[in-house]
């Protein structure tokens, strides 16, 4: 008997998904988060879950954790003092960045201030050139001087970022070793370890973020580990990374920047799992909550990855699932701009005061109020949620807008939803085009509290024909943690022209990446059969300054030749830009490898199919879908649905953590894994 538990700490709730591989039992649990000390909610929730479901915590084999500790520390500015050492002549780079303003026309808008104030930004006399040769050596006396300056700064952690350290890390390592010897309590991040790749500002910013987060993460993980050891001594702890996949607590202390998107990445893993069970390989996820919606494209069963991210206003180069946030959620507020047009979001009523219908003091109309006014949400609130919703308050909040527009409250409510959907669709389109895809070739997978409620509208506006709602859309992130694997990313940055005489050099770099991956597999005790290594090359035409990540498949002994690599690049270029020039010379900028240690995945429980395809209807209620016309919609409880059940829209499927809306013409069937598969009507 062994339990695997996924725990996702979100801004509002901490979600649990527990699975016992011996009995097949599954339990879910939700408890309010404790942002001042997130571990408290996790540990207390674990005990509550154990007591309620009669789980012996001694039987927990693995606890997979999605955490917002890193982003919260940035939002709340809780990090300690950081010192920075750069190449001489470049200490202001952190502040200059790309010399741009965040908004073209807004005189008042600024980027957040640099995480290291100027007085703690130090310079070291040293210089490496583009080919890795040392132009100016880092001398002993200089090292001593810098070590003293760092000591005097009183910093808890230090970031070191030298020019071209991704080609030749010797100087960064020399300084690190000297600092370590002199100041053993100091936490150190060097750019050639954190993210050894080209473009100094982004590498610098990433290294500084990492250094800022190190003391925070060390404190959190240590407290968490000891708390967990007392309660569940056999549980191994895995921390989810932004790229999906778990890492050890020790690794999380070294590279906390990799956890910045821990929770959303788990959602993508959960979505891939659910889509796989539904037989779908190409999926767009729509994780819509109270304030924003996260969108991610999954192709051939794998989430698209990105290496460029903004984390709380700071750029970071770190492997992460390519998730984009759109300012559209249930709490998004409808308002009028000077042009007299109604806009929705990005401002949100949040959890407090919340939408007007929550009766907690909110008076502005939100997306949730509009859904309630149209009958799309149940006036009884979420099933079993215990919180009734005030329809009168929802309508009252919409009334001023309706009056201003000269429309009925219902038509205004439709407008609020229409606009929030248009915002999501515009963002979805930009995201897919940027990645070279047509969203119409994808299936929509909504989750989060509000995703399934808007899925049919979004699918229609995007031209997507089908959407899939997983069994527990509200806690898909926690489920994703249960099915997550171990993983680690490696990168080598080495500008290499793609021509036959460089094949040897390419093979050497790839072999080195493979060796580093082997060492990691060994350290994590991943059995041979569970190892997977995938290689991606960032390639471009010589002269371009923007790379395409080109996946060249599983790494093995035989390095691919120039012809094969070119073919991969052409295909990727064609996909992204719609053309390629077979004659133009190509170069490789970064070599990336992602090692995955597959963990044993709990099998999916088998569920007895429905005897009769007609789904049990709990009740009916009038719901407005379009043009102000109310349809008598079937109301169905999700828990009553079994594989094989079918429902024809108009209908509302209600469950503990979400509501699924079927427009007239939509057709739903339930698959073996209890996913709702909805064919969107035309």
């Amino acid at each position: 008997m062994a339990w695997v538990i996924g725990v996702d700490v979100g801004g509002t709730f901490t979600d649990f998904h527990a699975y016992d591989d011996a009995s097949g039992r599954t339990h879910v649990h939700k408890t309010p988060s404790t942002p001042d000390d997130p571990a408290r909610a996790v540990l207390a929730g674990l005990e509550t879950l154990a007591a309620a479901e009669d789980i012996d915590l001694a039987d927990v084999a693995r606890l997979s954790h999605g955490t917002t500790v890193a982003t919260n520390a940035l939002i709340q500015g809780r990090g300690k003092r950081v010192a920075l050492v750069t190449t001489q002549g470049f200490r202001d780079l952190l502040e200059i960045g790309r010399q741009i303003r965040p908004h073209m026309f807004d005189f008042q808008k600024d980027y957040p201030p640099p995480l290291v104030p100027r007085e703690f930004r130090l310079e070291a006399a040293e210089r490496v050139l583009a080919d890795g040769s040392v132009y100016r050596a880092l001398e002993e006396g200089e090292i001593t001087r810098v070590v003293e300056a760092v000591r005097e700064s009183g910093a808890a952690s230090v970031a070191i970022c030298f020019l071209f350290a991704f080609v030749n890390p010797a100087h960064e390592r020399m300084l690190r070793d000297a600092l370590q010897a002199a100041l053993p309590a100091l936490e150190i991040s060097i750019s050639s370890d954190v993210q050894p790749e080209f473009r100094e500002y982004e590498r610098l910013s990433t290294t500084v973020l990492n250094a800022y987060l190190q003391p925070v993460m060390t404190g959190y993980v240590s407290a968490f580990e000891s708390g967990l050891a007392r309660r569940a001594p056999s549980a191994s702890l895995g921390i989810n990374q932004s790229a999906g996949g778990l890492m050890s607590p020790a690794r999380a202390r070294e590279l906390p920047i990799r956890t910045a998107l821990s929770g959303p990445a788990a959602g993508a893993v959960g979505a891939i799992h659910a889509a796989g069970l539904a037989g779908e390989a190409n999926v767009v996820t729509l994780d819509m909550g109270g304030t924003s919606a996260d969108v991610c494209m999954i192709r051939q069963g794998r989430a698209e990855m990105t290496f460029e991210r903004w984390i709380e206003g700071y750029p970071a180069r770190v492997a992460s699932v390519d998730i984009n946030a759109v300012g559209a959620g249930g709490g998004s507020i409808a308002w009028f701009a000077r042009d007299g047009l109604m806009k929705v979001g990005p401002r949100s009523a949040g959890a407090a005061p919340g939408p007007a219908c929550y009766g907690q003091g909110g008076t502005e109309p939100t997306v949730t109020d509009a859904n309630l006014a149209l009958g799309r949400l149940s006036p009884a609130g979420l099933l079993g949620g215990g919180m009734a919703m005030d329809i009168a308050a929802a309508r009252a909040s919409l009334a001023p807008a309706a009056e201003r527009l000269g429309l009925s409250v219902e038509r205004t409510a439709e407008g609020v939803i229409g606009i929030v959907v248009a915002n999501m669709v515009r963002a979805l389109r930009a995201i897919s085009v940027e990645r070279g895809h047509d969203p119409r070739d994808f299936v929509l997978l909504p989750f989060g509290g509000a995703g399934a409620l808007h899925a049919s509208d979004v699918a229609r506006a995007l031209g997507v024909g089908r959407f899939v709602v997983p069994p527990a859309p509200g806690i898909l992130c926690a489920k994703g943690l249960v099915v997550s694997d171990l993983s680690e990313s490696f990168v080598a940055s080495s500008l290499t022209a793609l021509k036959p005489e460089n094949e040897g050099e390419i093979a050497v770099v790839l072999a080195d990446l493979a060796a580093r991956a082997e060492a990691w597999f060994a350290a994590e005790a991943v059995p041979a059969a569970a190892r997977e290594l995938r290689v991606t090359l960032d390639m471009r035409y010589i002269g371009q300054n923007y790379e395409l990540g080109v996946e060249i498949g599983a790494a093995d002994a035989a390095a691919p030749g120039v012809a094969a690599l070119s073919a991969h690049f052409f295909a990727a270029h064609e996909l992204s830009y719609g053309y390629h020039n077979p004659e133009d010379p190509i170069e490789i900028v970064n070599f990336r490898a992602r090692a995955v240690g597959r963990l044993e995945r709990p099998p999916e429980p088998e569920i007895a199919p429905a005897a009769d395809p007609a789904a049990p209807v709990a009740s009916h209620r009038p719901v407005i879908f379009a043009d102000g016309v109310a349809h008598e919609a079937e109301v169905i409880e999700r828990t009553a649905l079994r594989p094989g059940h079918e429902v024809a829209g108009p209908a509302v499927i209600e469950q503990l953590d979400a509501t699924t809306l079927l427009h007239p013409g939509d057709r739903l069937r339930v698959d073996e894994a209890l996913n709702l598969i909805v064919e969107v009507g035309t």
Partner: protein
Amino acid sequence: MSDTDTDIDPITLEILHNGLRSVTDESYIAITKAAYSTNIKERRDHSTAIMDRTGRLIVQAENSLPIHLASMLGLMECLLAKFPLAEVEEGDIFVANDPYQAGGTHLPDVNLAMPIFAEGRLLGFVCNLAHHADIGGMAPGSMAGGMSEIYQEGLRIPVVKLFRRGELVQDMLDILLLNVRVPEERRGDYYAQIAACRLGARRMAELVERHGPDRLEAAFEMILERTEARLRSAILEIPDGTYAFQDVLDNDGMGTSDIPIAVTVTISGDDARFDFAGTGPQVRGNVNVTMNATQSAVYYTLKGMLDPDIPNNHGLIRSVEITAPAGTIVNANFPSAVAGRANTSQRIIDVLIGALAQALPEAAVGAANGANTTAVFFGEDPRGGGSYLYLETLGGGFGGRATKDGKDGVQVHITNTSNLPVEAIEMEYPLMVESYGLIPDSGGAGTYRGGMGLRRVIRPLGHETVFSGMGERFRHHPWGIFGGEAGGTGRFALRGANGAEEALDDKPSGVRFGPDQAVVVETPGAGGYGPPEARDSTALAADRRGGKFTEDYMARHYPATGDGE
């Protein structure tokens, strides 16, 4: 939803407008991704737009540069004047860049326009513009000073067809490419622009299919009406009156110095008039500005001071009246040189802010670095690989604001292009960047101080390089406002082997030097806001602690507060 239904409620309009914005967003991304040159890919020196059939701007991509708005409008005006509608055919793509024949603002900005047809009739155009890193002419990069006629600045392209009914006019492309340096890179950039036109046209076709052409056209008109109403409602809040201001450009690099730029703004109800009478005559050097670029500067300033999120479209344009005497530096006649027009545009904006500050003190800012400091390096790569051309424009200070300091080391106002990473420069070009930082004491003192200028030192490795540059506010300081003090000026210098710096001209051309020397580029800072004696003590402490200001400077500019900190 029927095709003939042109009665659009405000909600549907917002949704339609979103669909149109999506088209310009996606074309914009397509150019960023597919272009070859760093100027476009990394610095995002490009824009995309949708025009209606009469050439009115309906939607411009959000990230587009303000100055690009002008040349797109100019292009459409010239295109429609030159080509009868019968000669505008499906699959055509027009190309143009000339400021006098094709409505451009300077030659490196190459415009493409592709007509969109619906049910056999012209609905409008998708347009895009990209700043090409070279368009030929006397100096590499086509941006250097020292030219007196447009002919010296590069290849002039009137409005011509690059594609005819879907077929590439190869002869035309051959001419375009023969006349530029590094033609392979230019070809890649043209392809990126062409791909963006096609993507835009495809997406417009989908919108037509969904909504019908009549409804879309009705939406075009309503979008403009709404924007006009939005801008006018903001103008209404400006106190009525007449507000004048004047400043000078350093020089044109060809013998004319202290060129005045003057504006008188008259606000009356929701009407705003901008008159540039009093501005100096056009000059021999390349800092002249055509009327449409001057208009861009006005729209930019109004957005910045009144409503930054107001959409860029023709509704803005028809809400204000702008006049400037022909033959002045802000409304130049053929054949004056215009490549350096961004510097002048920056100054026009400073002048506009100076005038409107009298009516809108909360929204005003101190004078910014007022330049688009440009540095161009051209040479033969000693590692093999032929000749190279590297162009960069550097930011500087942004003025102090009503409630906070100005910004340090940023591109200001009319431009917002990013720098190129030092590691990218050194991997691609035989150059070494020795240092890159903020210039101490360059931000003008004030209750809220002005932003700081940038200093960058570049040395050629193993060969001689040829340096050309373009600087402004190298003599006339960026002024402070409401008692704020002026910021520092910029300069170019050549640093010798012994470390001594020899000053260069502020618009140097063809400066050849080798590896034992380095070019020093220093950009201007910006003016402060409010009297220095009102500066908060915490802010003063931070100015000192970080070393952004020297003790000496602090003692001279904040004497009342200098002790004890």
